[in-house]
């Protein structure tokens, strides 16, 4: 009887561990789908942005071509999540450079269409930042579960492997100066 109870308890623990691992993996996939959706929204804006600024930005032609090329790579079907993460980082940096360059062209800065694109991009950036943070938390929970005892044994049997987090850019890594924030 005692042996039976112990066996039942062990089975319940294994089932709970298994379910928790599956839930964590699904949470990562689910949130990645959310990131994908906002990234696509940003990809859709890129052709408009490039066509609006290219007449003015003769000196920055290279960066405009690069962002177009990165976009077409990101839109290809079947690329892995890891590749998407790398491309997102490059696109974020390229778009940042374009926005900085816009500042040097007064006509462009005042252009209604460019202003609208800037607003839309900054809104999408806020959504992407939120999605990245949600994804990183889900990946951290998942990575912890597959590396910590005792779930790591089961995770190993299920062939679960570590997932990569989104690295934040240098600007975002800087400490927030709370004092200055409230003096604003």
């Amino acid at each position, binding site marked *: 009887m005692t042996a039976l109870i112990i066996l039942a308890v062990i089975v319940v623990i294994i089932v709970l561990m298994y379910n928790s691992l599956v839930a964590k993996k699904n*949470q990562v996939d689910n*949130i990645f789908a*959310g*990131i994908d959706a906002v990234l696509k929204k940003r990809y859709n804006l890129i052709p408009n942005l490039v066509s609006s600024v290219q007449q003015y930005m003769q000196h920055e032609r290279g960066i405009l071509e690069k962002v177009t090329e990165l976009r077409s790579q990101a839109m290809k079907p079947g690329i892995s999540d890891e590749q998407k993460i790398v491309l997102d980082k490059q696109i974020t940096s390229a778009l940042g450079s374009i926005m900085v360059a816009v500042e040097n062209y007064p006509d462009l800065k005042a252009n209604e269409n460019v202003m609208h694109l*800037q*607003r*839309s991009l*900054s*809104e999408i950036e*806020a*959504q992407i*930042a*939120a*999605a990245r*943070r*949600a994804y*990183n*938390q*889900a990946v951290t*929970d998942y990575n912890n579960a597959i590396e910590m005892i005792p779930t790591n044994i089961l995770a190993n049997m299920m062939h679960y492997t570590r997932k990569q987090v989104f690295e934040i850019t240098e600007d975002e890594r800087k400490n*927030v100066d*709370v004092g200055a*924030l*409230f003096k604003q």
Partner: protein
Amino acid sequence: MKSASELTDYYYTELYDSLQELEQERHAVRKKVLTLFGILGALSLLIIAFIYNSCHCFNESFIWIGVGATTIGGFGYRMLVSGYRSGFKEKIIRPLIEAIEKELHYAPDAFIPQSLFQFSHLFDKRVDRFRGNDLVRGQIDGISLQFSDIHAEHRSRDSKGRTHWSTIFQGLFIVADFNKHFKGRTLILPDLAENLFGSYIGGMLQSRNFTKDQLVKMDDPAFEKAFVVYGTDQIEARYILTHTMMQRLLKLKNDTGSKIYVSFNGEKIMIAVDYDKDLFEPTVFASLLSIEQAMGYIRTLRSSIGIVEELKLNEKLWSKV
């Protein structure tokens, strides 16, 4: 917005005549209240002595005499202070609110509707009695804002069928427009579980709370230590709670020194500040001219109205222009 020291100056200079008048009224009311309490106390003691003399025993009737005296005292007190109370609200609180922001309207006897309180989803218990006062509403920097004192209570019965009232929430309830579009619901509650049981067991308890939405772990250790976040959408919760917003809410909690509950629902931010007492009420036993009293009223009014500025709710995101 005027600073606290400017408002204190205003309180003592512009409102000086009204304060003097009210202070005299307060002395008269205080005298009446003390007389009433004295008579009730003496009467109760007389009745108790009479009963004790006739039976030489202690019985349940003594308790009922106490309950009766307290109830009569409570009613009497309210009646005696009602004129002074409304004078105080009209002559002191209303001008103070107008001095802080002209666009705000004050209704001393109105309060935030129960439907809005329940729409926040901040408190799970069924609300059986809902009261409040001191409603302030209007626009600040184009943001619609309203707040009032609220007292929400729950009724329960014990095994002997006696009714008990327990407070669900008492304090300030603030509702304002939020500057981002969102569809779901995000709740920020004081982190009781982690404070009681530590981060590991507390975190486990929170994630298995089936009465709530999904647990949303935030990436700011100080915020995570003070609050627990539940939301219908993991991404949306982080879209609302940026690092800056988390810092601002933490500061709000530290400034008020009270438990705060925040709900983002229906494109509104709703904040409940647990003061456990009725605010903006006049004092009968302390002078209206004392600096602590004045600062108490000014600080509470200023921080409630200043919520729009403090949380930068007026900084509209591009999409919401």
